[in-house]
Structures are given as C-alpha cells and as structure tokens.
C-alpha cells in the first residue's frame, strides 16, 4: 500500500479546494477547527469561516440560516457532538427542510483515542441514518475523503460525513473517481463477503489476505455511502457468496451492520454477521491500534467471524 494520508487533513484540504472553486461555501466551527482542520479553510478564507464557540446546537442553527440565504454551509465538529449534541437541531433545522448543510463529523469512531468514551463516536451512523433526507458518507482513505467532500458539496441537501482522526493507509490512486451511493468492489471473491466502511476497509482487505491463506476467497466491499445504501451490490453479494460479514468502527447496533441486515432480510437472503463495537462504550487508550484490538476491529477477528459464518452456512 502506498503510504498513509491524514483523513482530517484531506477533509480540510478538500474544503479549501472547494472554497477556491465556489465562493458560496461557508464553514462553521465550534472551537475545534484546529482538530477538524477547518483551520486550513480559515487561513485562506477568513471571511467565510465562522467560529461559534462551544455551542454546537447554535452552530447547526446558524448553518441552517446560511443555507437559507443561499450558501452551502459546512459545519464541523467532533462527530460525537455534531451528531449527538446537535442532533435535534439537525433533524428539525436541516433534515426536515432539506437544507444545503453539510456536517463534518470529525474524530469519528474510536480515533479520539485518548479522550475516552465521551469523545468517541460509535453511534453517529445509526442516528444520522435514521433521519429522512440525510445522506451519510464514510470514506475509506485520504483520496476517497477528498472525492467524498467534493461529491458532498455537489449534493443539494443535507449530508453527514464521517472523518477519522487517523492517518489511514491509502487504498486508491489519485485518479480515483468517487461515486456517491455506489459500492466499490475492492476485491472480487465468491466464498464470503466482507462489507466494510471507513478505514475498516483496509482491515477487511487484510482479513481477506488471511482468508486467502486458508483457501477462502473473500469479496471485499467498500461501503463508503451508508445512506442511500447500494442495495444492488449488497444483494448481489448475498446471492453470490455464502454470507456477509460487516465491519465498522461503530456500535454493531444501528449502523452499517444493521443497514445490511435490513436489506438482506427484506430479500430473504443469506446470513449477516456484524463486526464492530459490541454495544459498549469506548475507553481511553494510548494507541489507536490497541483500542481497535480491544474491540475486535482486527483482521484476525474478521477472519474468525468469516470462518464461523462459513461453518454455519
């Protein structure tokens, strides 16, 4: 794999690039812009950056106000606050009126490793997914992050994008074209499917390597768009392989795993096994990898889950 890129830097840079091309983009920040990398945008467009202080609810309300006056309003904060603290504001002031507000959920998943459970976001996909009119994105690497930010700004409506505080292994070339709502088959395979989102895609790819050594041919899907979900690709995987293992840096309740289970169940298809944080709060850790290991977000665990699925199938 060709090096690593900081997800949040790519988010910040992509906003700057978009800001150059489109003068109608404003960015709102809630006292975390140096963490979200919204700071990059401020440096180039200070007049289009609004710092609202620690007041996420107010920030979302203000973003709605910007959208109502013809601006593309991007609001970033930590995912846990953007999605949680301001959820009611997003529902009423953004999703209900289908406003052109983009929400960047930074330090998502377990990537705010040291700050512990209060700062880790493992429910954002579940709650954003439950909102009508909302598009939910979760890119897998830095290149895809840039493409996703660009695509998000082209959507006329509310979008939530998940941004990890992590240097993620790069999976794509610079010429990668991000297609919203379209699953990317990262690796073909006929025995079992590993459907992953965000930076868990590379974990799934590594698991597929391990499975290959066991003689198991695993298909790997990058589900970068959680909503609207690419049902066709999910159903094809359910049909053509023995079952699906979902992998997400999120509670196994309500997120990617549930979305896939819903789709597959509706069609009466094969088994779905979920790998993720098993409905517990996170904790602080010294290293991110350590935390992933503590919650089973490892290639070895994905392999084990795939094997158990195949044994039962």
């Amino acid at each position: 794999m060709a090096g690593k890129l900081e997800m949040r830097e790519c988010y910040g840079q992509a906003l700057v690039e978009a800001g150059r091309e489109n003068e109608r983009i404003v960015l709102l920040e809630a006292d975390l812009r140096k963490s979200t990398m919204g700071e990059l945008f401020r440096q180039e467009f200070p007049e289009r950056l609004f710092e609202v202080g620690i007041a996420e609810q107010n920030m979302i309300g203000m973003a709605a106000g910007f959208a109502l006056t013809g601006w593309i309003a991007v609001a970033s904060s930590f995912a846990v606050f953007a999605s949680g603290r301001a959820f009611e504001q997003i529902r009423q002031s953004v999703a209900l009126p289908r406003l052109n507000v983009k929400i960047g959920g930074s330090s998502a998943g377990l990537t705010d490793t040291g700050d512990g459970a209060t700062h880790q976001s493992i429910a954002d996909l579940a709650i954003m997914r439950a909102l009508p009119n909302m598009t939910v994105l979760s890119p897998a690497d830095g290149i895809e992050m840039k493409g996703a930010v660009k695509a998000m700004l082209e959507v006329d409506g509310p979008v939530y994008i998940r941004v990890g505080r992590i240097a993620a292994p790069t999976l794509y070339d610079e010429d990668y074209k991000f297609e919203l709502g379209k699953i990317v088959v990262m690796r073909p395979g006929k025995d079992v499917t590993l459907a992953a989102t965000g930076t868990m895609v590379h974990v799934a790819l590594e698991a597929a390597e391990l499975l290959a050594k066991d003689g198991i041919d695993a298909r790997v899907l990058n589900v970068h768009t959680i909503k609207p979900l690419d049902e066709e690709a999910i159903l094809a995987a359910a049909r053509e392989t023995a079952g699906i293992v979902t992998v997400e840096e999120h509670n196994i309740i309500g997120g990617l795993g549930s979305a896939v289970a819903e789709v597959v169940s509706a069609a009466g298809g094969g088994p779905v096994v979920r790998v993720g944080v098993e409905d517990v709060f996170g904790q602080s850790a010294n290293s991110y990898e350590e935390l992933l290991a503590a919650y089973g977000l490892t290639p070895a665990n994905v392999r084990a889950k795939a094997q158990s699925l195949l044994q039962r199938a």
Partner: protein
Amino acid sequence: MADPKLVAELEEKAKMIRRNIVEMIGDTRRGHLGGSLSIADIVAVLYYHTMRLRPGDPSWEDRDRFLLSKGHAALAQYAALIDLGYIPKEELYKLKDLGSMTQGHPDMRKTPGIEAGTGSLGQGLSVAVGMALGLRLAGKDSKVYVIVGDGELNEGQIWEAAMAAAHYEVDNLVAFLDYNGLQATGCCAETMRTEPLPEKWAAFGWHVINIDGHDIGQILDALDEAAAVREKPVMIVAKTVKGKGVSFAENVAGFHHGEMTTEQYKQALAELA
C-alpha cells in the same frame, strides 16, 4: 412620534389578524390561540409597514425575512400571509389538516412566505443569526426579524445564539421578545424565572428597547430606533398580554393551546369585529 393615521391603519390590520387567528381555530379545533394573539400587533407592523416584501414573489431575494422562533404562534403569521395572498384564502379553514399549508408548526417546504421550519423551541434565534450573517456576507441589505417567546428563554440555545449575535455584531437582525409572562405550564415566573430580561440581553451585548407590545406607536418607534443601531443586534422587549384582544383568553394559560366553545367563538369574533 408615529403618524396617527398610520397607527390607526395598522391597528385595523392587527384586528384583522386576530380575527383570522380566531377563525382558523373556530369552534371545532384546538390551536395556539394565546401566543398568536399576543404577537398580532407586532406582526401587523412588520408585514404591513416595516418589511420589504413582494407578496406575489415569496422568494424575491431582496426581501426582508421574518421568523417565528416561537413556531407555535404560526397562526398570526398565517393570518397575515393569507390576507396578503401568499396562502390561498381557503387554507384559513384547514388548520393542521392533512396536506394543508397551515401546518401545526410552520413548514417552509409547505407554505409560501414561511422562511424556516420552527416548532422545537429555542432554535429559531440561531437560525435568524445565521440568516443575518448570510445576508450580510452576500452584500444584501435585507433585515431579519424574529420573534422569540419568553418561555423559550429557558432554552440554553437562546443564550448561545444571543452570545453569537453580539459577537458577530449582526445589526441586520431585530428580535422581538414576546414578553407575555405565560408559558405552556402556566406563569413563566413560576415555571422558570427568567427575569430580569432587559438586563440579561444587555449583559449578552444587545441593544435593548422596552415597549408595550400592543401599542402600535411604540412598536413603530422601536423599529425606527432599531434601524439606527449599528454593530449590535437589537432586542425589543415587548410587554404583551397572552390572548390579547379576546377577553376570556387574556392571561389565561389554558388558552396557550386552547379550544373555544361555539359561544366563546362567537364572542371572540364579536369582540374583534
């Protein structure tokens, strides 16, 4: 001092708005009577005098904006919008009906002339601050008018918005505080004491004007004063009476979301004739 002829005209408009509010609820429905009646005079001045509007072109980009942070008082706004032709007349009798333009709380996607969806309290002021900033940034000289309820001041987000508006010196934002002293549960002072109100807004960096919210002349003067204020948001603290204009509803918490008997309905219309 405001022109007496203008004042008289606007007083008539306020009465018409009150009549429309009462008709919307009628004797068969429940609706937010009290809080709609308390803002009728302010709504009349804004829609029939102060605001720059083109009723035939609801999305005219140079219009002034009006929001109800206290979204449940939408009836007062609907009344004006119906009279001005934004909303068809028949909607007057469809309050909260399935598919109606007169939804229980204002819905910008359903109703021409509504600028934002509000209803969950405490959010509208933030939206107004965002609008004011957005307009200023776009080089527009449009103003944003917003009415905030006094009970709503319990909501912390209001103070978040208050702080932000002062910080950004949004002088194209004029807020009214509908200081009617009653909220859903009863007396504001008993539910959650919010006084002293002018001091709070001043401490949060606003230019504060105190008026009687049913005195058209005072509303006009306050808006004149507000127009001259620079680099500060303006809060017009309007002392009002919940249910104003309908004697049996005045200062009665039960008419926050009330139901009128046929007799009361007839009486209300007679009082507003």
